């Protein structure tokens, strides 16, 4: 595998009630690359993504075993405060979920709660992140409008800016373009390319085309298990498993 390992997952098992959602998942996510998790819906890919910043804690009746190491620290068994672990990972969800605040505060919120209260600094940082996602020019005159007044595509970029604002080194994205129009999704997709110089990006998708376009490393899941994983070029041109082959040919769904 090219590049350093950012996250390594060993024998991760996750049950919700009696349902076995993740089965012996073992994988490595390379630093500063785009890793794509693929698979039909219900295969556990979103759960895998969420377990990386322990949002799975929110589920009731959940049991997790195994290891998730981020730069050598096992986040499942650690004394470190969970909020500071989560801050290292920006989350982008399927549909944009702006906070019930104005545009400016959507980006400033994360900064504020981590203690940055100086107005000048806040303004600078907000502008910086909005520029980073190509949103600044569109919203600079209406920063105090509610975020819900933006278009869906703009909202999703705002959410990306919000995720970046707390200075994470990992970005977790759960089908980030599935609710967007083609133009907005292209913008978001392109953004991932720019971001991978600085960030480790993990994207869950069920769009094969999107996976081919952006992936450096691909993980294919089916019924809670990893069927196959590898470098994107190798994975898409020369899959080893029968299941992967038929998935890539589009025989699923």
């Amino acid at each position, binding site marked *: 595998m090219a590049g350093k390992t950012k996250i390594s997952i060993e024998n991760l098992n996750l049950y919700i009630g009696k349902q076995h959602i993740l089965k012996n998942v073992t994988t490595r996510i390379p630093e500063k690359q785009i890793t794509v998790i693929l698979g039909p819906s219900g295969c556990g890919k979103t759960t895998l993504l969420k377990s990386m910043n322990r949002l799975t804690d*929110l589920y009731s009746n959940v049991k997790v075993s195994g290891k998730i190491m981020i730069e050598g620290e096992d986040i499942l068994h650690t004394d470190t405060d969970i909020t500071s672990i*989560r*801050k290292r990972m920006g989350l982008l969800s399927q549909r944009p*979920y702006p906070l019930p605040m104005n545009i400016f505060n959507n980006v400033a919120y994360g900064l504020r*709660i981590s203690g940055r209260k100086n107005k000048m600094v806040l303004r600078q940082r907000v502008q910086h992140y909005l520029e980073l996602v190509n949103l600044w020019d569109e919203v600079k005159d209406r920063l105090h409008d509610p975020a819900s007044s933006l278009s869906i595509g703009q909202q999703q970029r705002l959410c990306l800016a*919000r995720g970046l604002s707390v200075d994470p080194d990992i970005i*977790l994205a759960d089908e980030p373009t599935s609710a967007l129009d083609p133009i907005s999704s292209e913008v978001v997709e392109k953004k991932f390319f720019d971001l991978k110089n600085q960030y480790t990006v993990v994207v869950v998708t069920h769009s094969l085309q999107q996976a081919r376009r952006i992936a450096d490393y691909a993980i294919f899941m089916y019924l809670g298990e990893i069927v196959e994983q590898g470098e994107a070029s190798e994975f898409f041109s020369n899959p080893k498993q029968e299941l992967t082959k038929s998935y890539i040919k589009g025989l699923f769904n």
Partner: protein
Amino acid sequence: MKFYNITRALRSRLHSSWMLTALIFSLLLPVLLAIGLYLKSAPLLHDQHLFTLLFSKSWKPLSGHFGMYPFIISSLWVTVIALILAGPVCLLSAIHLTQYARPIVLKIMHPVIDILAGIPSVIFGVWGILVIVPFVGNYIGPLLGKHITGYSIFSGGMVLAVMIIPFILNILIEVFRTIPEELTEVTLSLGATRWMVVKHVLLKKAFPGIISAFSLGLSRAFGETIAVLMVVGNVTRIPTGALQPGYPLPALIANNYGEMLSIPRYDSALMFAALVLLVIVILFNIISRYMIHRVEKNI
């Protein structure tokens, strides 16, 4: 075979028209209520101005004075106290049950809320007499240096509070449930604690829903009759404190139905009181239900 088909079609027509009739009847019900009560109170409205009836302090049925101000004020006192007591409990519990509680707690609380909602008003009244009235008379009164019987507005408010808790709580739980989980997830990912998510995001998002739930609770409390009647004291006077007895509007109607036919215009006055109750409750309901509807659509 053909005959069979004809009867089938006929039966279907009959069923459908009965369904439609039933539907129209159900929807006309509030209109019927309003018209019926209006017709009965019309003679009184003809004699006396609406504002005199609503805002006059003079209630002397024998001499034809039907000022309802003391009863309206009593009703406001009782309902507001009920909401002040029930509101925070419901809000805190709704957050607890939707955000923090383990499945086992929900399993216990679901039937508890249902049973509480199903207990008849008169039982709450008995409980009020057994527990709340002595409590107010023996503890709250002396605590404030007053000698009272305990039959007071505050007792009425306390009993009402418990009665509207399941009602408000159910709506609040629904309101919090409609807020998408993802909003919590993204906020946690910014480094917020669970409580910060509640404080900064969920409460804001739920705010219109919370207000509506409270106002629905208020209107429910406003019309509650028997339980309040049993503990509130029923003295015709404009109350100036929560520990005084009061005489809310529904209690007035319920207490005097026996003699209302023997005094001229008394029946009109009581039916007018019922009409006032109906109008206030319907207005409150329409406004707050509409707000909830908007919230659920916007999420």
